[in-house]
């Protein structure tokens, strides 16, 4: 069997493998490599997660309870389907406000309760001058949903 035939066979072999690899990777990539879970994913998963995990979602409007003297906060994180109550004591990032997207690192305390150890605020891909937002709000065009 000449070198050319060997290489041809190995090429075919490799192509088949690459095709199946791409299929497997693309088919499963979404379910992988989770930086954070959404509240729905967290509530639906059966495994009791003892370790530190991260949850991500939006802070429900008018849910933030501040106790300013000892930096203690309570708020509700939602993904519009399910809600989780989060407790946190510490310093909040600048961007933290109601309606903002957040990623919270911490442990599950009980049914739909979460004790946060770190909070990251997530900002979206929209960039808009602050003045325009005011104008939009005045004219009631501001309908960004959280």
């Amino acid at each position, binding site marked *: 069997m000449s070198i050319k035939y060997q*290489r041809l066979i190995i090429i075919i*072999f490799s192509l088949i493998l690459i095709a199946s690899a791409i299929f*497997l990777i693309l088919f499963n990539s979404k379910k*992988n490599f*989770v930086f954070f879970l959404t509240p729905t994913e967290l509530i639906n998963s059966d495994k009791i997660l003892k*370790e530190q995990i991260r949850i991500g979602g939006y802070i429900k409007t008018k849910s933030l309870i501040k106790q300013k003297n000892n930096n203690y906060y309570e708020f509700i994180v939602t993904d519009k389907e399910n809600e989780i109550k989060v407790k946190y004591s510490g310093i909040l990032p600048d961007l933290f406000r109601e309606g903002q997207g957040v990623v919270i690192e911490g442990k599950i305390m009980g049914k739909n309760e979460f004790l946060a150890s770190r909070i990251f605020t997530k900002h979206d891909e929209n960039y808009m001058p602050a003045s325009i937002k005011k104008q939009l709000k005045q004219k009631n065009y501001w309908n960004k949903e959280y």
Partner: protein
Amino acid sequence: MQIINSITALFYKEYKIAYKNLYDILTIILFFLLGIFIFVFSIGPNEEIFQQIGIGIIWTLLLLSNNLSIKRFYQNDFKDGNLHLLHMSGMSYELIVLVKLITNWFFLQIPFFIFIPIACLMLNIQNDNIYLILLTFLIGSPILTSIASISGSLNLLNNRNIEIASIIVMLLSIPVIIFSFGIIKAPPELIKPQLSFLIGILLLFVSITPWICAACIKIAIRNS
């Protein structure tokens, strides 16, 4: 068929060398076990901590012991002209690489299947997780072998800065570590998709390794 004879001859030789260098293979395993000792002593024998980070320790040490085997792939055969001799016997470089991958996986990674459970016991890892570690290692170890092979062939003529070979191995192993560690930590319903993702990475590496290594070997031989 001449080609089959050549392949069996190469297997025969690799087996003979592996058998005669059994102590070298045992050294790598000893490195793995001693590494675990070092971790235990440096963190302190705390069962809870090890249950959390034990899997990470085992995978890290598997990766590091994989580093030790980089030079066993092509370095000797390249220096004494055996790679060209094999090529002259009618084997293409890609085929040589494939045979080398199989033998090196067999002789260097299979022994770990005995020693991983022992390491897990030393670190008090739960039984369910031991099965998962073995399963991920079954899929992950051929990837590690391919990576070591790629790195070894990239550094065939590198006699100045062989450390960079280890760096390349570590860089390319990062996806393996991320996904095999992810499987063990994942909730049960995510295990299957993650496993198939890891298999996808395995297939990808196995299919591209012969071509990359053969190209590197050709370049090295042309410039020797």
